C-alpha cells in the first residue's frame, strides 16, 4: 500500500484549528446542557447534549483523517479573529426558559459562522491543499445549516411571552 504523503505544516495547522473549532463547540454545547439540567429545562438540555455529540463526531473525524492518536498542539485560545472560535455559541445566548427552537437558532448561527470561516479560507491565498480542505469543510457546514433549518421546521416556534415566568426570580418587575 502506498504510504500517505506527510501533510504540509500549513495543512496540519489548518486541521488543528478545525479540530479546535469542533472541540470547543462540543465543550460549549455540553456546558449548555449542564446549565439547563441544573435549571430543570431537560428538553433543551437533551438537545444540547445531542448537538455536543454531533460536534464530537466531527472532531473525531478530523483526528482519524489526520491519523493523530490524540489532540494535536492547539493554537492559542485567543488566536481567532472573533471573540471565540467561529462555531462556539456565546455564553449569553441562553435563557432558563428557552425552548428547543431557540437552541436550534443558536446552532444555526454557529454553523453559519463556521461556514463563513471556511469559505474565507477557501477564497484566500492559502496553499491549495488548505483551500481544498476549507472548501470541503465549508460544504459540510452548509450541509449542517440545511439540516438544522429542516429540523427547525419540525419544532414549534415559540410565541411572544415565552420568557414569562409565572413565579419569577426577580422582584423588580
Amino acid at each position, binding site marked *: 500500500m502506498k504510504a500517505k504523503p506527510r501533510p504540509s505544516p500549513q495543512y496540519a495547522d489548518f486541521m488543528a484549528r478545525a479540530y479546535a473549532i469542533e472541540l470547543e463547540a462540543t465543550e460549549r454545547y455540553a456546558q449548555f446542557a449542564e*446549565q439547563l439540567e441544573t435549571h430543570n429545562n431537560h428538553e433543551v438540555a437533551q438537545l444540547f447534549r445531542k448537538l455536543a455529540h454531533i460536534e464530537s463526531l466531527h472532531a473525531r473525524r478530523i483526528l482519524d483523517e489526520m491519523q493523530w492518536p490524540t489532540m494535536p498542539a492547539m493554537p492559542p485560545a*485567543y488566536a481567532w479573529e472573533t*471573540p471565540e472560535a467561529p462555531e462556539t455559541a456565546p*455564553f*449569553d445566548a*441562553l435563557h432558563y426558559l428557552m425552548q428547543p427552537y431557540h437552541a436550534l437558532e443558536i446552532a444555526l448561527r454557529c454553523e453559519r459562522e463556521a461556514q463563513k470561516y471556511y469559505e474565507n479560507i477557501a477564497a484566500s491565498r492559502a496553499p491549495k491543499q488548505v483551500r481544498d480542505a476549507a472548501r470541503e469543510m465549508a460544504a459540510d457546514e452548509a450541509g449542517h445549516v440545511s439540516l438544522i433549518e429542516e429540523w427547525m421546521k419540525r419544532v414549534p416556534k415559540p410565541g411572544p411571552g415565552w420568557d414569562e415566568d409565572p413565579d419569577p426570580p*426577580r422582584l*423588580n418587575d
Partner: protein
Amino acid sequence: MNAPLTVQLQAKDFKSDYKPVWCPGCGDYSVLSAITKALAMLNLRPENVAVVSGIGCSSRIPAYTTCYGFHGVHGRSLPAATGLKVARPDLTVLVASGDGDGYSIGGNHFLHACRRNVDLTYIVMDNHVYGMTKGQPSPTTEPDWCSKLAPGGTGVREFHPLVIALASGANFIARASSGDPNGCADLIAQAVRHPGFSFVEILSPCVTFRPEQRGWKDQVHPAPVAPTDDPARAARRLMTDDGFNIGVLYKGTRAPFAGAAAAAAHAVDDLEKAFQL
C-alpha cells in the same frame, strides 16, 4: 535517567467537577472560562494556584476550579488573600469578587489592598446589582436605575472602581468584557504576570435582574490609547472614560510588597529572641 515529563495543561484541567449554578446566560460562566484559559496560557498548575473569594454569585468561582480555593467571609477576600500570598509567595493568588462584595462590604479592604501592592490579581465581576440577594442596587448601580427595590432609582452617584484603584495605588488596572472570553483571558494573564496588585474589572451582565446588560457586548470597545505608566495621565483617562473602554488602562512600575523578604526578616527564632527576658 529520563527527564520528568511535563504536560501542558488545558483550560479544562482547571475546571472542577462541580457544576456552576449561575443563571443560564450569566456573564460569570464566561469569566470562569477566561480564568481557566488564562491559567493554561500561563502554563501554571492547579496546585500552585489559589483562588480566594468572598460572598456573592461571582464568589462561587473557587469551587468551580481545581486550584486551591477559599470561599471566605463577605467582603473579606482581600485580607485572606493578602495573608496567603505573604505566607506563601510561591503561590499565584487570584481573588474573585463582585461589585457588592468588593466595593461595598469589602470597599475598605479594596483601598488598602491597592495601597499595600501585594502581588495579587483581583478579578471583580461587575454587574451593577446584588444578584444573589434578588436585585438590590450596588455601589456601581446607576443613580436612575428604577426597580421595585429602589423606586425612582437611588439618586446616589455610582462608585468608580478604576479611579479608586488608581488613587489607592494599584499597580495594574484593566477592564474586560465577559462578552469576549478570550480577550478576557488575555487580560487576566497579563494581570497575573504584572508584579504587584493587579485589578481587572470585568463587565459581566446579570441577565436575571439587569437583562438590558446583554447589550453591553455591543457597547464595549477597545481602549483607543496604549496603556500608560503615568498615574496622572491614567487618572485623566479614567475620569473621562465612558465605562466601556476595554484593555489595560494603567501599568505601573511600583515595586510590590516584599512579602518574602519581610517574612525572612521575621524568622520565628528572631521573634522568640525579642520576647526573651
